[in-house]
């Protein structure tokens, strides 16, 4: 059975789950990033490996903030790879902060079935998508006492037994009700924010410094921070496209913000199109590079913990990927 996490990326994604890390996913217009966000989400909830042993070690609750894409999209894409958003939301393994419908009353007239379904789910809606309201909403979510430790059923062996049975490919939906995670009271959730740059773009009054300090305070309160951001040329290379001195505030602030994020991230996943044009069997290129946060422990001295030494071995890499119709993804190195 193919794993949900592409094998070449597994080691990197596992490293992103270490405590106090920031992960940055950048994408361009032709290569959107939801597939990778969902895989990061999956790895956070169930671990990178398929083995149940690993799943017990890594298993964090997720606060998922979506600013650009609706919940119906996430639910539909997630279903195909084995993330049952409905039950995860009801179990409070995922707390969904809906930035898209924030402040807008729902129109039930033209709703498809999946949209109607997702509307019933417990989500957190900030009053509006201003920075302040989102800050309040997140503070509120984080302040909630350890969400479901009392209501959660005791761990059972159900998960591992069901998985060993099926040998053919089928989207694996782990029974979220029987999750073997017992969150300790002090454990912090992981925060995934999709489209964080939208806050900067939609509100000219928000300065990048404010947004950075907001993220920094978030980072101290959570287990880890995962962010997705746009890295299209006009937003990143303003000096060449418009000439120095003629750039717009958005271009310059975005470049400032994104470079700053990359400097404080441990890993940067960069999605882009093929340099040579487009091809039917390649969706894009993914490059995984070490960001500016290399950890201050790798200087001199005793570095005996296995985690650290393994992490040092991970080198930057680049692969091609293809999104297939059933939402599976194939990742391979050039020439394979």
């Amino acid at each position, binding site marked *: 059975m193919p794993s949900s996490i592409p094998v070449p990326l597994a080691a990197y994604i596992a490293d992103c789950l270490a405590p*106090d890390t920031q992960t940055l996913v*950048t*994408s*361009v217009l032709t*290569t959107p990033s939801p597939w990778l966000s969902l895989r990061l989400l999956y790895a956070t909830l169930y671990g990178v490996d398929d083995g149940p042993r690993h799943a017990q070690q890594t298993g964090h609750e997720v606060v998922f903030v979506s600013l650009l894409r609706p919940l119906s999209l996430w639910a539909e894409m997630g279903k195909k790879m084995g993330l049952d958003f409905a039950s995860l939301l009801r179990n409070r393994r995922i707390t969904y902060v809906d930035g898209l419908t924030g402040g807008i009353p729902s129109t039930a007239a033209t709703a498809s079935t999946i949209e109607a379904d997702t509307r019933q789910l417990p989500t957190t809606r900030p009053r509006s998508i201003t920075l302040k309201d989102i800050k309040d909403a997140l503070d509120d979510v984080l302040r909630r006492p350890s969400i479901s430790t009392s209501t959660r059923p005791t761990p059972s062996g159900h998960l591992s037994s069901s998985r060993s049975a099926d040998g053919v490919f089928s989207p694996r939906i782990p029974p979220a009700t029987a999750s073997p995670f017992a969150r300790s009271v002090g454990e912090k959730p992981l925060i995934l924010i999709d489209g964080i740059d939208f806050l900067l773009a939609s509100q000219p009054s928000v*300065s*990048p*410094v*404010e947004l*950075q*300090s*907001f993220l*920094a*305070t978030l*980072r*101290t309160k959570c287990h880890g921070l995962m962010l997705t951001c746009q*890295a*299209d*040329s006009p937003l*990143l*290379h*303003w000096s*060449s496209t418009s000439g120095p001195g003629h*750039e*717009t*505030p958005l271009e*310059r*602030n975005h*470049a*400032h913000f*994104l*470079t*700053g994020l*990359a*400097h*404080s991230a441990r890993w940067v996943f*960069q*999605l*882009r*199109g093929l*340099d040579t044009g487009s091809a039917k069997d390649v969706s894009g*290129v993914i*490059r995984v*590079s*070490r*960001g*500016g*946060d*290399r*950890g*201050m*422990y*790798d*200087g*001199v*001295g*005793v570095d005996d913990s296995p985690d650290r030494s393994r992490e040092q071995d991970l*080198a*930057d890499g*680049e692969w091609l990927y293809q999104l297939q119709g059933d939402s599976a993804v194939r990742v391979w190195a050039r020439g394979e």
Partner: protein
Amino acid sequence: MSHASLSHRRTHNLLLISKLLNQRDHASPLTLVLDTLEQPAKPLLCDYLRRARLSRTTTIFLSFETFVKPRDVEFFVQCHGDTKAPERVARQVAEAVGKSGNKRCLILIDSLATLVSMSTNPTSNLNLTAFLSSLLQPATQLRNDVQRQPPQVSVVAVYHTDIPLPYPSTSASAYSYSPSPFALLSYLATTIITVHSLSILQAEKSAQVKSQVAPVFGLAEEVEGVVIGAKPKCMGLRPEERGIVLELEHRRKSGRGVLEWFFLPTVAEKNQSGVQAAREIVTLLDDHPLFRKPKDDEDPEQALSGMTFELGLTDRQRLEREGVVLPYFDAQKAGGGEGGRILYDMGVEDDFDEEEDEI
């Protein structure tokens, strides 16, 4: 000749970098470390911390983008988040310096980006120069023990050169006449260390050998979607030959600048202790196996060996040559000396013409 200058540089500049990194004699009060995403300055900061631990210097770490307290740091000041105004940071640093009672303090700033963008915003009311000097001179806070010598404080600050300044707010028009924060910082700094990636330098060098345009990496590539470049791997290097390259610019008190390229290995041997640990690990970049010049260029003996005539001297010839007193030395003696004077007695056959001599 180049050989001699190399050994001269080896002696003097290695002493200098060792003094700077160990913060001996208060050699550089403000060190500016310039880095990019291609080669962050974290390994250099680690080395500063390691040396500070060995020399028992108090370390104060101002963290703007570091969230885990590094080892070897005594005072960890979290500066991220909007609650911390720069004045509070300065006060905390002064308290830490006072508390430690140590004569030598090292303040590390892991990123100046936040401070710099705040300083361009008039509403934040931050003066970068004043803030840095308040870090360097915290002695004013310690009124109660004036008789004590003020502690030696050095600041090492990292500036990410690839982060552009945020767009100035509309009310900042008055600021367009003032120098950019980066220009200001590079004027203030007594030492500037630029951090380079070894693999990028190697790629540049191999391109130069083939007279090709040097490749660029990361943001400079200006490829859509690329934030961090795919650097070529340095193959065939031993672990102790991996590391980062430092480009040093040190301004002496006399005003003379020293420029040098160094290599700092990042993987150090384990079980370092005592004398072993105090040994200098930084070398000149020219001594690194990838950048070492080929031997034949350096050796003058070999360059002369292919000629058809003899340019060298025998021992006897050299002794005789050294014995010759040249006329201008002799002329400097009192009375002008005897060796260089022109003595001429006019004979009868000489037709002395006074008019001709006047010319």
